[in-house]
C-alpha cells in the first residue's frame, strides 16, 4: 500500500478526485465521445490496411482537409453544419480518389515500403498546404449535434454530442458492413483485399477498386474529424494528434478488424480521459498512445481482434 501511495504520488494523484464518482462518470462519457471519433479515423485506416497491407499516414491529413472544407461550407458559406459535413465528405472523397490515382497507383501494389513513404510525404504536403492556404490561427467548427445534455448526474452529463458521436460511429460501421457484404463493389473490395492476383483473374479492375477504398476511407475520416474538432480547435496540426490516437486504436483492434477498430477507439478514448484526469498526464497523453502502439506490436501484433494474416506469395 505504501509503495502504491508513493508511486501514485509521482503522478500527483488527488484522492479527492479518485473517490469522486461523478467525475469518473463524467470522464467515462467524455472518453466514449472521444473514442467514437478515434474509432472513425481508425476505421478509415483499417479499410486501407486491409486492402493494401499498409498504413495510410495521410489519412489524418485528408480528414484535415475535409474538416477545413466543412468549416468553409458551414461557417463561411452558412450551410447547416450537418449538410456542410456531408459536402466535405464528398469533396474529400474526390480529393482522395485523385491522390490515389496520381500518387499511389503508379507504384506496384505489392511493394509496401515505397507506398508507406509516399503516404508520409502526402501527410507533410497536405498538412503544409492547409497551413499555407488557411493560415495557422485557430478556428472553431460547431458540432453537428445540439448542445446540452438530456441526462445529467451532477457534473456527469451524457451530452447530445456524446450520443451523436457514438450513434454516428455505429451507423458508419453498420453501413460499411452492408456495403462490403451485400454489394458488388463491396465484393470486389474484399476480393482485392484477400488475393490481389485472383481478383485480377476474375476480371476485377484492381486500381479503381482501391481508388474507391481510398475515397470511402477519406469520407469516413472526414466524418471522424468533424466529430472531434468541435471539442478542440481547428488548426493545421490537429489531425496529426488525432491520427496518433487513432493509430493506437487501430493497432489495439488488430489493424485489419473493423469491429476491433471501433472497440480499440473506445478503449483509447476512455484510457486517455481517465489518465489525463486522474494522473494529470495531459503532457504525456500522446506518448501514452505511442506506447500503446509499441506494446501491442511487440506483445500481440494481431491486436485484440486481428487475424493472423495469410502470407502473400
Amino acid at each position, binding site marked *: 500500500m505504501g509503495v502504491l501511495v508513493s508511486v501514485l504520488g509521482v503522478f500527483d494523484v488527488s484522492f479527492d478526485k479518485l473517490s469522486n464518482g461523478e467525475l469518473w462518470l463524467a470522464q467515462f462519457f467524455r472518453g466514449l465521445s472521444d473514442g467514437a471519433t478515434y474509432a472513425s479515423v481508425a476505421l478509415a485506416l483499417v479499410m486501407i490496411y486491409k486492402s493494401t497491407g499498409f498504413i495510410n499516414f495521410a489519412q489524418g491529413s485528408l480528414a484535415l482537409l475535409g474538416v477545413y472544407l466543412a468549416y468553409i461550407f458551414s461557417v463561411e458559406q452558412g450551410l447547416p453544419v450537418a449538410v456542410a459535413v456531408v459536402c466535405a465528405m464528398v469533396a474529400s472523397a474526390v480529393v482522395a480518389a485523385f491522390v490515389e490515382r496520381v500518387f499511389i497507383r503508379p507504384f506496384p501494389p505489392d511493394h509496401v515500403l515505397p507506398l508507406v513513404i509516399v503516404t508520409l510525404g502526402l501527410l507533410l504536403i497536405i498538412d503544409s498546404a492547409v497551413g499555407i492556404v488557411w493560415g495557422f490561427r485557430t478556428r472553431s467548427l460547431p458540432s453537428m449535434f445540439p448542445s446540452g445534455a438530456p441526462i445529467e448526474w451532477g457534473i456527469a452529463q451524457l451530452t447530445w454530442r456524446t450520443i451523436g458521436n457514438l450513434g454516428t460511429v455505429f451507423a458508419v460501421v453498420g453501413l460499411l458492413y452492408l456495403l462490403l457484404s451485400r454489394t*458488388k463493389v463491396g*465484393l*470486389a473490395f*474484399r*476480393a482485392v*483485399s*484477400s*488475393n490481389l*492476383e*485472383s*481478383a*485480377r*483473374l*476474375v*476480371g*476485377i*479492375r*484492381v486500381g479503381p477498386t482501391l481508388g474507391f477504398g481510398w475515397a470511402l476511407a477519406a469520407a469516413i475520416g472526414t466524418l471522424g474529424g468533424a466529430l472531434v474538432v468541435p471539442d478542440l480547435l481547428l488548426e493545421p496540426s490537429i489531425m496529426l494528434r488525432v491520427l496518433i490516437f487513432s493509430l493506437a486504436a487501430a493497432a489495439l483492434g488488430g489493424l485489419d478488424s473493423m469491429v476491433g477498430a471501433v472497440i480499440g477507439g473506445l478503449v483509447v478514448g476512455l484510457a486517455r480521459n481517465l489518465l489525463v484526469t486522474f494522473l494529470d498526464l495531459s503532457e504525456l497523453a500522446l506518448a501514452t498512445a505511442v506506447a500503446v502502439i509499441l506494446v501491442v506490436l511487440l506483445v500481440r501484433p494481431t491486436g485484440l481482434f486481428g*487475424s493472423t494474416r*495469410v502470407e502473400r*506469395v
Partner: protein
Amino acid sequence: MSPAYLEVAGLRAAYGDIQVLHGIDFSVDEGQIAVILGANGAGKTTTLRALCAMVSTEGSIRLGGEELAGQRTADIVRRGVAHVPQGRGTFPELSVEENMMAGAFVRSDAEVRADIEQWYETFPVLGERRTQAAGSLSGGEQQMLAIARALMLRPSLLLLDEPSLGLAPMITRALFEQLTAINKEAGTTMLVVEQNAALALGVADVAYVLEAGEMALSGPAHELAADDNVRRAYLGY
C-alpha cells in the same frame, strides 16, 4: 485451313531482366484440350500468365481472331478467358459462396445463381461448405473451389495450372473426367499444365513440351505419349 481458336506466335515473356520465354508458338483449336508438359522452371506457368497479361510479354496472342496482346487482364477475362493459377487460386477470407460469386464478377446475366448450384452438384463438398471461409478448406478442396470459381465465368478458354496439385490420385482422376465432360458438353477450350503427364496426355487432343522457355516438341497427344523421349522424361517408363 482456318486459324486455330487460340493462336500464339513469337511469345516472349520476362520478369524484369530475366527472359523466361524465348519466342514460342502454339495453337489450340476450338473445343480442344491442349496440355503443356515441361520440367520445373521450364516456363509453363509463365506461358499461362502471359496469356492473361500477368507478366510483361511480347508477341501475338490471338483468341478467336482477336488480338489479346496489349490488353489488360480485366479485359482479357471479359473475352472469356478463365485462369486457375498454380496454388492459391481462391479468396481465403471470403466464403465458398462468395468465391463463386467473385468468379462470376464480370457476368450480369440471371443464371449466376443456377450455375453456382450446378457446380455444387458437381463438387458436393463445396455445397456443404458454402458458408465456410475458403481458407478453412483443405488444400484439395481449395483446388476444387479454384476450378469451380473459374468455371463460374462460363469461359470460352480455360487455363489450368497444375489442377491436380494437392489432390489425391483418385480425386485427380475424377477431376480430369469432369473436365473432359465439361469440355464435351460446353465445348470449353482448355489449356492445361499438368505434372501427371500420363493422365493429361490421356485426355488431351494436342500436347506441347516446353524446355527452358522454348517449345521442344508438339503434336497430337497420343503421338507424344508414344514418343520415346517424352516417355522417358515425363511418363517415367
